[in-house]
C-alpha cells in the first residue's frame, strides 16, 4: 500500500513540474492546446496526492510501524479516530496535508479562473504549480512521510498528548489551509502582472473571491486555535502572542487589509499598486508563518513540527519576495489608478487609513516576533518580547481600527460633507455615551476597557442605525417588519454580509476587552471536603480519583460549583502524565455562560491529600466563540448574489464598431 503512495507522489512531482513549465508557455505563446494540457494535468494532482494521503492514513489505521512517520506519531494505545490528527501531527504529514489540500483548492480556482479570466489563467496556473512543486519536492527529497524503517518496532512512540482533543480535528487543517490558500489570490495577482493585464482591473473579482475565502479560512483557524488553547492548554487564556500564533495573525492582518482595499479598486479603480503590495506582503507573511512553524529560530511554546527545514522555507520566501518585487517593478506602469482620492471624508479614505493600521499592527507583531533573533545575533543574549509589549502597542491600534470599522461603511464612496458625517454619527455617539454611562454605573473604572466598549458601541450603533432606517423605509412601503429586514439584507449582500462580519468582530473585541481587563485569578490549596469562594462562585473539592491508561496516568478531581447559594454543576478538571513523552498535561474544567466563565485547573496533587488549583473568572469569553459561526455566515453571505439582483442587472449591448474591430 505504501508503495502506491510513493509512486503517486513521484508521479505528482513529474506532473507538477510539467504544469509549472507548460502553464507559463501556454500563457506566453497564447497556445490553447498547451494551456489546456497544463490545466488537465493540474486537475490530476488532487487525485494523485489524495492517493498518497490515503495510503499514509491507512498506515496509521492498521498501525503499520514499518513506516517511520507512523512509528513516530502513533502507538497501539491511540484511538483509531485520531489517525486523521496523527496524519498531520508531524512535519512530513503536515506538508503532505498542505500539498493535498492546496492541490484541491487550487484546482477549483483554476477551473473558475479559466472561465472568468481565460487569458490570465495559464499564468496563474503556472504560479500555483510552482508553489505546489516546492511542497512536493520537499516531500519527496527532504521529508518523505512514507519512508520505511529498516527494523520494524513493536509499538510506536505515540501522538503528542496535547493533540488529543476534538479541536485538533479542525484547527490545524483550517490553519494550514488558510496559510497556503493565500497563494491563490497571490497567483492571480502575479499572473495579472506577468501577463501585463493590470491596467483594466480584470482580476479584481477573482482576487476578491479568493482573498475572502483565504481570509475566512485564516479567521476560522485563528478562532479555533484560541478555543483549543483555552480549553486544552490549561492556562486559562486563549492568546499569548506566541510566535506561532503571531505567524498566523500577520497574514490575517494583511489579508484583512486586502479584502477591504480590493473593494476600492472594484468600485473606483484606485489602489491598484497598493493591492498588489498587500497581497505580496500577505503571501510573504504566510510563508514566514510556515518558516516559524517548521523549526525556525524563534522559540515557541507550541510549535508542533520542529525541524531544521525552516531555513528552506525562508530561502524560498526570500526568492519569492525578490521575484515578486521584480515583476511588480517591471509592470509598474500598468498599475496607475484610474481616478484620484477625492475627499478624506469618504469610504475609500477610511479604507486606506484602516489598511495602514492593519499593516502597522502586522509589522509591530513581526518585530516583536523576530526580535529574539536580532538580540541573539547582536547581543548574544536571548530576549523575548512578552504580552505587555504587544498589548500596549497593538491594543490602542486595534481600538482605532474598530472605530474606523464603525464609521467606514457609513460613509459613501467618493465624498461626504461634514453635515452628512455628523448626521450619520449622531446615533452611534449617543449609544457610545450610553454604554460609557452603564459601565460607570456598574463600577467599571479601567479607562482603556471603557474606551474599548465605547468604540465597540460606535461600530454597533452604526450598523443598528443603518438596519433600522433601511427597514423603516421598507415598512412604510407596506411590508411587514421581518420581511422588510430580510429584503433589506438581501438587497445588497456584500454590504450587509460585511455588516454581519463586523458584528462578529465587535463581539470578538468585546470578549477580548472584558476578559483582558476584568479577569480574576486565584491560586488555592484545598483539602478534600473544603470549600472556597471567589466572586459569586463557591466551589467544593470532593476528591480525586486516579486511573492508569496504557499511555498515561490520569488524576481527575471532582468539584461542586455553586452560585449565590444555588448548585450549578459538577466540575472534573484533570491532570495526566505521559511517561513516553515525560509530559504532564492539565485540562481545565469550565463552566461557561454569556456573562463569564468559571475556569478551574489543577496545578498539583500532593500526597497528603491536599491539592493546588488555579481558579479564574474570565468575563465574556463565550462571546468570542459565538462570534465564529456568525463570522462564517456573514462572509459566505457576502460572497453570494441574490437572484433578484441578478435579474436586475442592466447589460450592455455589444456595440457593432467594437465587436467588429478586434484590434481594440
Amino acid at each position, binding site marked *: 500500500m505504501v508503495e502506491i503512495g510513493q509512486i503517486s507522489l513521484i508521479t505528482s512531482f513529474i*506532473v507538477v513540474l510539467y504544469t509549472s513549465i507548460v502553464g507559463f508557455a501556454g500563457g506566453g505563446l497564447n497556445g490553447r492546446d498547451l494551456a489546456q494540457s497544463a490545466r488537465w494535468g493540474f486537475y490530476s494532482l488532487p487525485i494523485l496526492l489524495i492517493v498518497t494521503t490515503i495510503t499514509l492514513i491507512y498506515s496509521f489505521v492498521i498501525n503499520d510501524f514499518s513506516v517511520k512517520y507512523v512509528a513516530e506519531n502513533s502507538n497501539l494505545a491511540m484511538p483509531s479516530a485520531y489517525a486523521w490528527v496523527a496524519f498531520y501531527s508531524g512535519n512530513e504529514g503536515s506538508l503532505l496535508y498542505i500539498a493535498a489540500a492546496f492541490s484541491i483548492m487550487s484546482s477549483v480556482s483554476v477551473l473558475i479562473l479559466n472561465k472568468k479570466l481565460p487569458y490570465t489563467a495559464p499564468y496563474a496556473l503556472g504560479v500555483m504549480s510552482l508553489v505546489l512543486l516546492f511542497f512536493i519536492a520537499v516531500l519527496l527529497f527532504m521529508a518523505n512521510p512514507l519512508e520505511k524503517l529498516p527494523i520494524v518496532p513493536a509499538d510506536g512512540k505515540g501522538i503528542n498528548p496535547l493533540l488529543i482533543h476534538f479541536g485538533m480535528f479542525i484547527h490545524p487543517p483550517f490553519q494550514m489551509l488558510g496559510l497556503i490558500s493565500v497563494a491563490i489570490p497571490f497567483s492571480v495577482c502575479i499572473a495579472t502582472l506577468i501577463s501585463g493585464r493590470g491596467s483594466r482591473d480584470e482580476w479584481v473579482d477573482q482576487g476578491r473571491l479568493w482573498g475572502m475565502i483565504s481570509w475566512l479560512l485564516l479567521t476560522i483557524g485563528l478562532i479555533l486555535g484560541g478555543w483549543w488553547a483555552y480549553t486544552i492548554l490549561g492556562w486559562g487564556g486563549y492568546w499569548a502572542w506566541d510566535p506561532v500564533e503571531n505567524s498566523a495573525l500577520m497574514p490575517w492582518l494583511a489579508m484583512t487589509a486586502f479584502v477591504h482595499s480590493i473593494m476600492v479598486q472594484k468600485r473606483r479603480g484606485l489602489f491598484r499598486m497598493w493591492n498588489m503590495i498587500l497581497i505580496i506582503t500577505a503571501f510573504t507573511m504566510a510563508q514566514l508563518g510556515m518558516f516559524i512553524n517548521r523549526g525556525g529560530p524563534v522559540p515557541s511554546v507550541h510549535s508542533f513540527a520542529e525541524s531544521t527545514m525552516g531555513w528552506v522555507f525562508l530561502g524560498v520566501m526570500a526568492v519569492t519576495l525578490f521575484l515578486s518585487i521584480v515583476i511588480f517593478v517591471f509592470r509598474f506602469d500598468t498599475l496607475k489608478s484610474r481616478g484620484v482620492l477625492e475627499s478624506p471624508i469618504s469610504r475609500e479614505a477610511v479604507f486606506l487609513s484602516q489598511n495602514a493600521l492593519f499593516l502597522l499592527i502586522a509589522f509591530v507583531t513581526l518585530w516583536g516576533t523576530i526580535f529574539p533573533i536580532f538580540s541573539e545575533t547582536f547581543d548574544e543574549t536571548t530576549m523575548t518580547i512578552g504580552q505587555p509589549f504587544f498589548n500596549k502597542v497593538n491594543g490602542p491600534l486595534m481600538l482605532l481600527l474598530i472605530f474606523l470599522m464603525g464609521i467606514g461603511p457609513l460613509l459613501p464612496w467618493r*465624498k461626504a*460633507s461634514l453635515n452628512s458625517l455628523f448626521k450619520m454619527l449622531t446615533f452611534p455617539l449617543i449609544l457610545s455615551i450610553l454604554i460609557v454611562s452603564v459601565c460607570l454605573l456598574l463600577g467599571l473604572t479601567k479607562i482603556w476597557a471603557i474606551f474599548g466598549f465605547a468604540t465597540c458601541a460606535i461600530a454597533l450603533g452604526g450598523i443598528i442605525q443603518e438596519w433600522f432606517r433601511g427597514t423603516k423605509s421598507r415598512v412604510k412601503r407596506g411590508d411587514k417588519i421581518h420581511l422588510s429586514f430580510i429584503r433589506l439584507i438581501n438587497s*445588497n449582500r456584500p454590504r450587509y454580509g460585511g455588516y454581519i462580519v463586523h458584528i462578529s468582530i465587535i463581539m470578538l473585541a468585546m470578549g477580548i476587552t472584558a476578559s483582558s481587563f476584568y479577569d480574576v485569578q486565584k491560586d488555592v490549596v484545598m483539602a478534600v471536603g473544603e470549600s472556597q469562594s471567589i466572586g459569586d462562585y463557591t466551589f467544593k473539592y470532593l476528591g480525586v480519583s486516579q486511573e492508569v491508561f496504557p499511555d498515561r496516568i490520569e488524576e481527575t478531581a471532582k468539584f461542586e460549583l455553586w452560585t449565590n447559594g444555588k448548585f450549578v454543576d459538577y466540575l472534573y478538571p484533570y491532570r495526566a502524565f505521559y511517561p513516553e513523552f515525560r509530559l504532564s498535561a492539565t485540562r481545565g474544567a469550565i463552566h461557561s455562560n454569556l456573562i463569564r466563565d468559571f475556569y478551574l485547573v489543577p496545578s498539583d496533587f500532593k500526597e497528603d491529600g491536599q491539592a493546588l488549583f488555579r481558579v479564574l473568572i474570565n468575563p465574556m469569553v463565550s462571546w468570542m466563540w459565538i462570534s465564529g459561526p456568525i463570522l462564517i455566515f456573514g462572509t459566505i453571505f457576502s460572497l453570494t448574489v441574490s437572484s433578484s439582483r441578478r435579474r436586475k442587472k442592466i447589460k450592455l449591448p455589444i456595440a457593432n464598431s467594437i465587436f467588429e474591430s478586434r484590434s481594440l
Partner: protein
Amino acid sequence: MVVLISLALCLFPFVLIIFPLIRKYSASEFIPQDESSLFADLERRWDSAIEGLRSTELERMVGNLHDQDYEWLKNIHLFEAALVLRALDLQESEQNVLIEEVKMEVFRTVLISQEKYNLEEKE
C-alpha cells in the same frame, strides 16, 4: 494488484496531458472573450456606475447622505455611465433604451426611499 494500480496512476495524468496536444481543434470552436478587451473593461465600468447609482440611492434611503452630497454623487455616476455609452459608440436608439433602463432603476429606488410606492399603487 499494486503494479496495476501504480500503472493506472501513472497513465491517468499522462492521458490527460497528452489528449489536448493530439486532438484536433475545429475552426468553429468557441474562442473566449479577452478579459482585457476594451468592451470587457467598459462593461466593468458600466456595472460599477450602475452599482454606484444603486448604492447612492441606498445611502440616501438610510439617511447617510445629505441632499447636496446625493446630487453630486448621482451626477458623477450618471456621467460615468454616459461616458461608457459614448465610448461604446452605440446607435442613438440603443443609448436611449439603456438610459431609460437606468432611469427606471434609479426611479424605482427613489420611490422606495420617498415612500410614494403605496400612493402610486393606489392611484
